[in-house]
């Protein structure tokens, strides 16, 4: 067993900064992290949810060549970083771990599975670099699973360059143990007329920070940064976004929604920055929460920083309970109260998953969602 080269003192005072004021990860500074060199790979097969697709597997940050299916345009390199992450002011440590590089057009979604496991706390990194050249399309599904109930910390960093007229879709799901820390970031640079969609789904973890830094560096960029979460006891999710409109006529949307049970907590910070002369920017940010319990809490912080005149920027946040009118409607059709509540929570969250086109990945996420949802088994009986 080797100890990782991680300076965990950085976690001690993070919450004293404005960007982390609602998310305290100082407990991580007191943990001796390790990185087991021998890992049990037998668990991988159960998470190979798209057996026809390219599959890149890491366990505790170590590439598992034997379990992976590499296609053209996918390579695994040692210690490589892209140069997009350096543009932002993210305070999440970056580590020198091997990285996956994905280029070229892929007919199907590339699945990158990152497993963190061990009977002692593990700290590791996962670097992915996506480069879509002019006119190319790349779809990526990232599955991040912490097994074993330790205070693992996983710090995935995905960098995306979307060149002219390219199209990139990333679905990142955080699943598994509810004891692990997940400090992830996505860094996106877009060129003219490119389209990037990211979808961050948080179903696991004790403390999950999802950062998105996006740079719309060309005209007519289309950007959708979406997120969904369903959290319960002692869980926290902090979605932190900065979207920079640096050129005119860009459309960006941030749409995050979630359900919080017990004493779960959600933080949403969305900063839209519109540079001088980035006219006809259309930027929108929305955060919707349903809280099921008085102990749950939400903090939404929309932030607009606009230096151009001719722009349309909107923000909205809602936090509420279940819609009583809808509840009555369902009950007036014979559906018992508890089941009707479950159906409405599922509906609220599923609206977000509905947009995912890839059925294999969608099915797994819906399944995990139902496992987390109180009364979720009832929904399974409704499938046709």
């Amino acid at each position: 067993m080797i100890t990782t080269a991680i300076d965990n003192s950085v976690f001690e005072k993070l919450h004293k900064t404005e960007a982390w004021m609602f998310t305290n990860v100082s407990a991580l500074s007191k943990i001796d992290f390790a990185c087991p060199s021998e890992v049990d790979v037998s668990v991988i097969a159960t998470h190979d949810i798209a057996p026809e697709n390219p599959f890149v597997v890491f366990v505790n940050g170590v590439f598992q060549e034997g379990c992976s299916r590499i296609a053209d345009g996918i390579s695994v390199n040692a210690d490589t970083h892209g140069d997009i992450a350096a543009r932002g002011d993210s305070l999440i440590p970056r580590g020198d771990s091997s990285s996956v590089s994905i280029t070229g057009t892929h007919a199907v979604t590339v699945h990158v599975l990152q497993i963190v496991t061990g009977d002692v706390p593990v700290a590791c990194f996962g670097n992915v670099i996506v480069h879509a050249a002019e006119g190319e399309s790349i779809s990526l599904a990232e599955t991040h699973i912490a097994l074993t109930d330790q205070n693992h910390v996983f710090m995935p960093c995905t960098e995306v360059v979307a060149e002219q007229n390219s199209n990139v879709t990333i679905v990142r799901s955080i699943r598994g143990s509810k004891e692990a820390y997940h400090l992830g970031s996505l860094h996106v640079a877009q060129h003219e007329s490119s389209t990037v969609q990211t979808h961050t789904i948080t179903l696991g973890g004790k403390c999950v920070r999802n950062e998105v830094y996006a740079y719309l560096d060309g005209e007519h960029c289309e950007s959708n940064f979406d997120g969904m979460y369903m959290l319960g006891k002692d869980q926290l999710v902090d979605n932190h976004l900065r979207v920079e409109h640096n050129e005119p006529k860009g459309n960006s949307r941030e749409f995050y929604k979630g359900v919080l049970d017990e004493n779960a907590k959600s933080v949403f910070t969305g900063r839209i920055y519109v540079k001088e002369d980035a006219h006809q920017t259309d930027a929108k940010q929305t955060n919707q929460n349903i809280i099921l319990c008085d102990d749950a809490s939400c903090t939404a912080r929309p932030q607009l920083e606009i230096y151009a005149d001719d722009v349309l920027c909107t923000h909205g946040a809602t936090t509420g309970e279940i819609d009583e009118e809808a509840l009555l409607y369902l009950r007036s059709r014979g559906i018992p109260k508890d089941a009707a509540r479950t159906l409405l929570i599922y509906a609220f969250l599923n609206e977000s998953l509905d947009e995912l086109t890839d059925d294999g990945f969608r099915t797994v996420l819906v399944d995990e969602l139902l496992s987390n949802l109180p009364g979720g088994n009832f929904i399974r009986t409704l499938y046709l």
Partner: protein
Amino acid sequence: MTTPLLEITNLHASIEGKQILNGVNLTIMPGEVHSIMGPNGSGKSTLASVIAGHEAYEVTEGSILFNGIDLLELEADQRACAGVFLAFQYPVEIPGVSTKFFLKAAVNAIRKYRGQEELDAMDFLDMVEEKAKSVSLNIDLLDRNVNEGFSGGEKKRAEVFQMAMLDPLLGVLDETDSGLDIDALKIVADGVNQLRTQDRGFVIITHYQRLLDFIVPDFVHVLKDGVIVKSGDKSLALELEEKGYAGIEACKSECSCA
């Protein structure tokens, strides 16, 4: 003697402290269609909501017996299972849930309550196809989320379709004709007429006589200020059309209504 399907006695109800119903009496026998008419604010929709079990309304006095059982003791979902169906004036949109998904939950909840076996996917879909035809409802609509993106007419037709699926003993239609053009009105009425049986009763709440040309009622009642001020046969609806509700008020003293 046959048990009345619905027996409302001296019903008083309020919402947020405001008294709306002031002693409604209404008896419906199996197979009968009763129309309730009345001016805006007379309490028609309140009556429908109270029958369906809307929790915002408080029953302050009186009783409702449904097939001999105390309806006010039952929760909204139990009433639906017992056989009460309310077609909403404003059907609620529910994003994220497909209509089929929702209906399967409803049909099986009701079947379970009635001690019937739950339907599997195949039988359920067969039933959907058959009932959708009866109200000329485009079956593709049912893959959409509940009432979401439906036109006004589609929403009302979907309500009647749901009623056909849930097979109630009592159908309460709350202004199902509002917002419908004449063709849609005929389709909705036709759907309701197909559901008329000797066991099933209907309460048709409407502003206008027009709907009653297509769903011919056995009785017409005029509700005003929370009480039924006049009852009669279908000719009463025509009289209302001619004289308006004000005319009814004038006659209140000289006829023995309610």
